[in-house]
């Protein structure tokens, strides 16, 4: 994985800065031997401890999904991972994350007050294993510079309504299949991203008005002009200038804060992990 580089940060949106509320998003990248786990989580705006929830589920997701990879020996590349198996085990693993979150509610937090979404991407060999609960977006870029989404966010009736890891979705298989979607990307990829919905207006084509019918269409596609130059030019330059992970994340944090007008004016908290393949020069 040494060719792969990760920029990741969570920043407060304009609304939370004005109201002096802490960032309710959380994200992290966890490198392991032979694979990497990327997690983003968006704490529910209406839940008072959701910033704790998002941080905790990120950590629990790493623990449980790394346990899964190593138990299945997927990182050793000995066994083919089928979509059916991934869908099944990802649901069970997310349930374990949910149960761990419920355990910490014993420490005095109301369980629902910890509500948050979750997107997990396991990068393993030439695959991306993706699973998620709730909204947010994720996408990848193949070797032909074509971007595509790798999940469909769950959106409720009203904007900002979605399902959370704390929601009552765990009782039956129909419900699990409705709310938890898992996919495997098996293409030659050069970059991928996962983000909370605070970044979607800036980086994804979400809904566009059809010019003829004037009816909005659900596009769900990473916006190439957001990513292209960064992935192909600016980030490789940063990597080549030997920036540390901390420096990269600081640069990324600054970019997510006010990198363009859409990012600057976003009222919601913003989180994005951008993974970019920058082949290392042989010394």
């Amino acid at each position, binding site marked *: 994985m040494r060719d792969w580089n990760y920029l990741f940060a969570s920043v407060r949106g304009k609304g939370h800065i004005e109201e002096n509320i802490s960032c309710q998003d959380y994200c992290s990248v966890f490198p392991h031997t032979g694979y990497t786990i990327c997690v983003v989580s968006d704490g529910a705006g209406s839940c008072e401890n959701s910033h704790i929830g998002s941080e905790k589920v990120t950590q629990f997701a790493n623990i449980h999904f790394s346990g899964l990879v190593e138990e299945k020996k997927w990182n050793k590349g000995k066994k083919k991972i089928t979509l059916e198996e991934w869908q099944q085990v990802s649901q069970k693993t997310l349930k374990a994350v949910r149960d761990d979150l419920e355990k910490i509610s014993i420490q005095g937090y109301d369980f629902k007050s910890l509500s948050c979404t979750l997107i997990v991407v396991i990068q393993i060999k030439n695959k991306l294993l993706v699973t998620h609960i709730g909204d947010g977006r994720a996408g990848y870029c193949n070797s032909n510079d074509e971007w595509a989404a790798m999940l469909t966010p769950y959106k409720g*009736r*009203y904007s900002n309504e979605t399902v959370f890891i704390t929601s009552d979705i765990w009782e039956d298989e129909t419900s699990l299949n409705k709310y938890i979607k898992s996919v495997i990307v098996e293409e030659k990829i050069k970059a991928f991203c996962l983000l909370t919905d605070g970044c979607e207006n*800036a*980086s994804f084509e979400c809904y566009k008005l059809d010019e003829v019918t004037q009816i909005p269409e659900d596009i769900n596609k990473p916006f190439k002009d957001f990513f292209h130059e960064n992935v192909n030019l600016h980030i490789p330059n940063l990597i080549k200038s030997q920036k540390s992970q901390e420096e990269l994340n600081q640069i990324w944090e600054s970019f997510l804060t006010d990198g363009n007008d859409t990012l600057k004016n976003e009222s919601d908290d913003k989180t994005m992990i951008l993974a970019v393949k920058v082949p290392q020069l042989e010394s």
Partner: protein
Amino acid sequence: MHGLTAQSPNNFQKPCLCILALDVSGSMAGAPIIELNMALEGFYQSINNDDEAAEKLEICLITFGSEVKCIQEPAKVDNFKMPSLEADGTTKLVDGIRLAIKQVELRKEYYKKYSPQYSRPMIIVITDGEPDTGQDIFGLSEELKTDMISKKYTLHVIGTTGCNYAKIAQFCPKELIYQLDGLNYSRFFKWLSKSTDEISSGKNFIDISGYNDFMHQSPIN
């Protein structure tokens, strides 16, 4: 920015309906209606000057006096001019709120056909009085309770000098009734223009910063 650069797409903004149900009864004549008209014009300009708000916010204006009228169907600010209100007559407050609820239902039907998602509609009622006698306060109370549980819309009632808060509380949950300090309509609408996202998300006014600079929860709380 270390060279990082990005363009963003022009995404469709999910519509957000804001219904203002306004008391234009005779007691609003004089300074109150003048202040309210100025504040509404200021609200209109604030929205018009905010590209994002102008693109997603749909305003609907309902007035209630001796008659109840929808004087502005839901529309974005670039599609209408803010009308000037005149005060006269009694206070058909209950009918005014009912018409606002009807407008919510009609607009939601439209959104369901033409929009992938929309924000929860909000109804804001401003009154300086109490409902005319003979209006169905009990029926409205039951209707609001059911609608609030199913999150059909958000509703807040703002009272000004002369408002009978005890009467309002017979149909509206007490925590959603507010008292404006004096004739601070302008400050209220300035604050409202910046707070529509939060109100639509279901937040009560007391959970949104800045509200207590010009209004308070009603005396019956």
